């Protein structure tokens, strides 16, 4: 068989296999994305076209105080979730890794279970548990602060509590990634280290941590992207209040699009968030790679 023919056959197989995805990607992702880009330069309402207004939406956005509040809240939330959830997931993974067989599977399932739940169920559970009048967690809060607190109505509590809910909800997936990473570390390395008299801490610091770094970097990056896209929990738990203390960029985008009928402006917000996420996550990943090489 000539090389050319084989090439062509391989090409055909490749097209056949990637085709369905590429089509779905183009129709449901690429095309809408391009539409959002063009829409962000128009004064379109939510539905239907609009007139080309150049960079007016972006200029308006740069002067929008609420946008800066939202952006700040986004980064505050990232601070509250990304590193904590990674550390917690690593600790849980290390502990679960010590278990064996069915017990390990059971414990892993328990930690993974919240991740399976839809966000509406998660927020409902927590809204009930933290309900001001009847919440089961209020006595606990009372023992710490001396009085019950309507956490999603309190400017100081709202973001940290949404962070707690989010970590509880999404942590299982990170645990899973870490477990996979831990299982990839060859056991002989630990045996050799043990023979050389390494302590448990040394084994973690010199073997586990460096070899696990690619997974850690992945988890950190995935979390960063995910948490910058925060919307559901805020919408369902606090609606951005009180006085915008939990208002985030996607919340603003939603209100502009669906409540105020400003499709063009909402698209501009979406674009700025998109670019922000790209820049921040690329930066972070490069930083982490440098950190990993050391």
């Amino acid at each position: 068989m000539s090389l050319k023919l084989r090439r062509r056959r391989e090409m055909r197989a490749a097209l056949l296999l990637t085709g369905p995805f590429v089509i779905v990607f183009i129709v449901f992702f690429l095309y809408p994305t391009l539409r959002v880009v063009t829409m962000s330069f128009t004064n379109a309402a939510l539905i239907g076209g609009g007139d080309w207004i150049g960079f007016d939406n972006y200029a308006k956005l740069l002067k929008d105080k609420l946008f800066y509040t939202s952006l700040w809240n986004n980064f505050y939330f990232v601070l509250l979730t990304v590193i904590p959830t990674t550390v917690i997931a690593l600790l849980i993974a290390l502990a679960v890794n010590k278990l064996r067989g069915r017990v390990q599977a059971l414990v892993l399932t328990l930690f993974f279970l919240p991740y399976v739940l839809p966000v509406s169920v998660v927020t409902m559970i927590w809204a009930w548990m933290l309900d001001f009048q009847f919440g089961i967690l209020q006595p606990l809060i009372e023992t710490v602060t001396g009085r019950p607190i309507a956490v999603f109505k309190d400017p100081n509590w709202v973001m940290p509590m949404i962070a707690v809910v989010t970590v509880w909800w999404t942590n299982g997936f990170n645990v899973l990634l870490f477990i996979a990473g831990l299982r990839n570390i060859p056991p002989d390395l630990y045996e050799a280290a043990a023979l050389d008299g390494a302590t448990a801490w040394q084994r973690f610091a010199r073997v586990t941590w460096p070899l696990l770094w690619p997974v850690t970097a992945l988890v950190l990056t995935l979390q960063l992207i995910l948490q910058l896209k925060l919307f559901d929990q805020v919408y369902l738990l606090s609606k951005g209040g009180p006085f915008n203390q939990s208002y985030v960029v996607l919340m603003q985008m939603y209100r502009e699009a669906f409540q105020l009928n400003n499709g063009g402006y909402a698209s501009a917000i979406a674009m700025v968030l998109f670019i922000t996420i790209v820049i921040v996550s690329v930066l972070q990943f490069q930083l982490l790679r440098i950190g990993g090489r050391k």
Partner: protein
Amino acid sequence: MTGRFTKFAATVAMIAGLASPAWAKVQVEWWDFLAGGDGVRMKALIQQFNAEHPDIEIKGTTLEWGMPFYTKVRTAVAVGEGPDIMTYHLSRLPLALEEGVLSPITDADLATAGLSKEEFFPASIAAASDEAGQLMALPFDIHAIVLYYNKTALAGSKWLDTDGNLTGLESVEDMTELLTWAKEQGFSDPLSFQTAGGGGTWRTFYTLFTQQGGQLVTDGQVLEGDNLAKATRAIQILADWRAAGLIPEQAEYEASVALFSGKKSILFINGVWEVPTYKDQSTAGTLGFDWSANEVPQLLDQRSTWADSHGFAIPNDPNMSQETRDAVLTIIGWMEKHSLAWGEAGHIPAYKPTVDSAEYQGMEPNATYAVLAETAAFDPRTRIAGVASPVYDAVDNLIAPAVHGFLSPEDAALQMQEQLQSLLD
């Protein structure tokens, strides 16, 4: 999908000259947001209509009140998948006009429905029309907040007159005195209302605000002139009551209802739509006390009560067949003429013949509080106000936190002014 198919089939049949009344059972897609005690009454009305009209079938769907409902309406109507008829808050009409979701109601439509504009309260017709006076919806009721009170607990006190109505409440101080007294009597949260934000907080705030003659928007300016001070004062009154423990802390809607039925509150500010809830509980003997409801008393400079209207609207769908439209108008006409049942749901019918009827006049406490319609303060006519509007967001975001002491009333009013103004500019 079946609805569309039926419509399509009906159209084809009509073109082909095959349509006969016996054959064409028109299916009408109906959306509402009535999930409370009044929703039960509405479902009964729909059932009765379906039973009386073999040629028309209403297929009702109840969606979640507020933002979810209006977001769905706007997106569904835009892509031609909306309902054939829906309930709509007339306070939201300016937003609806901007969104272009409503189909105008013509004089011919009114004739089909067997109604005329003169049969409705003028204020509600005005609220249902656009700037040019074109009718965009048909008002169904006027609903307002009222002051529910525990008659048993107030018996023998100076705040109850011989007819069993509230008396002696002529200033904020009078109200505070009553509430303080009730607190001493063991009512932990003497005046209940939805304090955590949302509709309840807005309606109470707006009542106190308009009782000072306050206007939210004047000539495109939010809280202009002394309106800012009036808004501040309204928030201050609520914040003072909260600080003294006279109104509940962070009560959500359901909790506010439970506080009154659970005898933790002696007074309760809420919409007339909870009247059937308490009527039913009284009839069943589960409430454990006598209650009634009056117009919210004048505590400040003038009589005023927040009010809104439910109306029927036809979504803007160029593909709607005349047959479906006629069926929808038949439904609207029938509903208006049977609005006595809606009066039982607490609302004041917008259709005057119903209110003038002897049956309605004999209905209590409805007939007593119906006088509030004279001084009802509707939401300002602007696209930033109305159910699920930016004003409602400002209430959650600023007024409710200020009532709970997280923000000073001055700052709350100022920020509200600033945020809402930026949406109008």
